[in-house]
């Protein structure tokens, strides 16, 4: 087994190694089954649209200006949610991780509130912030806050204590300690927290858009569904899926995960 593992690792990047072939195979199989089902006539009209009609819809989507407007709205909502929720989460995490007292007092709340589906607060957000993007940002920020705060608090406690002593021995000021020691020492948990936060902010924002809104991708998807423009709906799902993967990869890259040793 070890030998095979080595082989595949060595061959990674070569187009025809077993791992890549398996990956391609499952995608191909899915596409073939999909197309077969689409042509079988077992389903009502467009429930499973043909690959070709989805491809056409993707093309139409990408060459259309209004799509980019909605994409921009959603992206801005998610970005604002990440900034607000993630920023507050970072501060809360540093406070909780830095003080045993505060963490004893408050961290239990975070553990209980963290897994609660934030969408249940959407009616409240609509009352407070209206039907527009603000309520989506609020829900996304609320979703994002918890994983970032918990991840940063845990990361703060895992910092190698000797690095803090080094900083103190060189008489680093509190601000320097945070910027030059705490934050870089926590880069992995922070990036991880932001990744998780991004995921739930995306979910929260899109979910909110599908519930009640007047713009954004979530709104367009549910709109396509209700007007039974299924190929277009799938086209948006695919584009969104690819974008989510890309952003996730980008966040991972920015954090330098895997690049820095130890």
């Amino acid at each position, binding site marked *: 087994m070890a030998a095979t593992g080595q082989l595949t690792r060595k061959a990674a990047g070569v187009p025809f190694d077993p791992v890549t072939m398996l990956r391609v195979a499952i995608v191909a199989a899915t596409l073939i089954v999909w197309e077969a089902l689409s042509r079988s006539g077992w389903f009502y009209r467009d429930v499973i649209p043909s690959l070709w009609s989805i491809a056409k819809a993707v093309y139409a989507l990408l060459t259309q200006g209004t799509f980019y407007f909605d994409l921009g709205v959603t992206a801005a909502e998610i970005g604002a949610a990440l900034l607000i929720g993630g920023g507050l989460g970072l501060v809360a995490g540093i406070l909780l991780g830095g003080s045993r007292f505060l963490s004893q007092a408050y961290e239990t709340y975070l553990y209980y509130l963290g897994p609660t589906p934030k969408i249940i607060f959407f009616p409240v957000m609509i009352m407070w912030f209206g039907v527009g993007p603000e309520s989506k940002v609020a829900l996304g920020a609320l979703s994002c806050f918890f994983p970032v705060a918990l991840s940063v608090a845990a990361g703060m406690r895992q910092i190698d204590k000797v*690095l803090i*002593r080094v900083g*103190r*021995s060189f008489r680093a000021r509190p601000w320097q300690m945070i910027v030059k020691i705490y934050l*870089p020492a926590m*880069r992995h948990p922070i990036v991880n927290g932001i990744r998780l936060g991004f995921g739930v902010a995306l979910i929260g924002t899109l979910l909110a858009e599908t519930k009640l809104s007047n713009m954004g991708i979530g709104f367009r998807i549910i709109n396509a569904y209700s007007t039974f423009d299924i190929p277009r709906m799938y086209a948006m799902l695919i584009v969104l899926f690819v974008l989510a993967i890309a952003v996730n990869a980008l966040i991972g890259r920015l954090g330098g995960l895997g690049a*820095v040793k*130890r």
Partner: protein
Amino acid sequence: MADPILVVDDIVVSFDTTEGPIAAVDHVTFDVRPGEFLSVIGPSGCGKSTVFNVIGGLLSHSHGIVSVSGEAINGPHKSIGMVFQEESTFPWRTVIDNVAFPLELNGLPRRERNERAKHFIAMVGLAGFENRYPGELSGGMRQRVSLARTLASEPKILLMDEPFAALDEQTRLLLGDKVLQIQQQLHQTTLLITHNITEAVQMSDRILVMTYRPGRVKRIVEIHLPRPRSSDIVSSDAFGHYVAEVWSDLREEASRGMEDAERHALGTAGEAS
């Protein structure tokens, strides 16, 4: 004789335990003269690391005064540079950025601090590794990075806590040579905490032997070996004589420590069964 640069005067440190307060360091008094190499040696648990942390200003003491050039210190002092026993390089910084760290804290412009960092990197024998990350270096090299980083802050007193404890014996001897060479080159006042007798005799002008729990000063041994020294000195008769002398003092303390540890192990085993 020159006035002492570091005075440790009647220091007491006690820790609260479940069985009440325990004195880790009990009325310890000594001083270090400018340019001197002084080692503090003692068995594990004699409180020598506590002394290190008190002088470094990272631990508060309940009684006594630590003063540098006549000025009582309270917290980390700019004249004292610490090298820790543990792995303490910043893994996210390259070697040069690690070494430049104290200069960066003081707001030195990048060009100037890199120049000075390079100087100290070369001094510890790591020229050419400036842009490597600690993860790419061996344990001995990383410890030299830590040493260079502390030297870069140009402390009046270099304070080291078993800096080579985690390294293998050969690396340790070679690094000892390096430290000795640097110390002699810079006339660096150095205080080394160690449990290694040969290391202490090889490098020191004086060796302070501490007692096992509570940590007190048992004796101060003057080492009159010629300078400059290197690890070659370990083969001389005088060296052997000093090692034996220090060991005779240390032996009693070390065996007390061992007995204590055994009793403790028995005690906990008794509780468990």
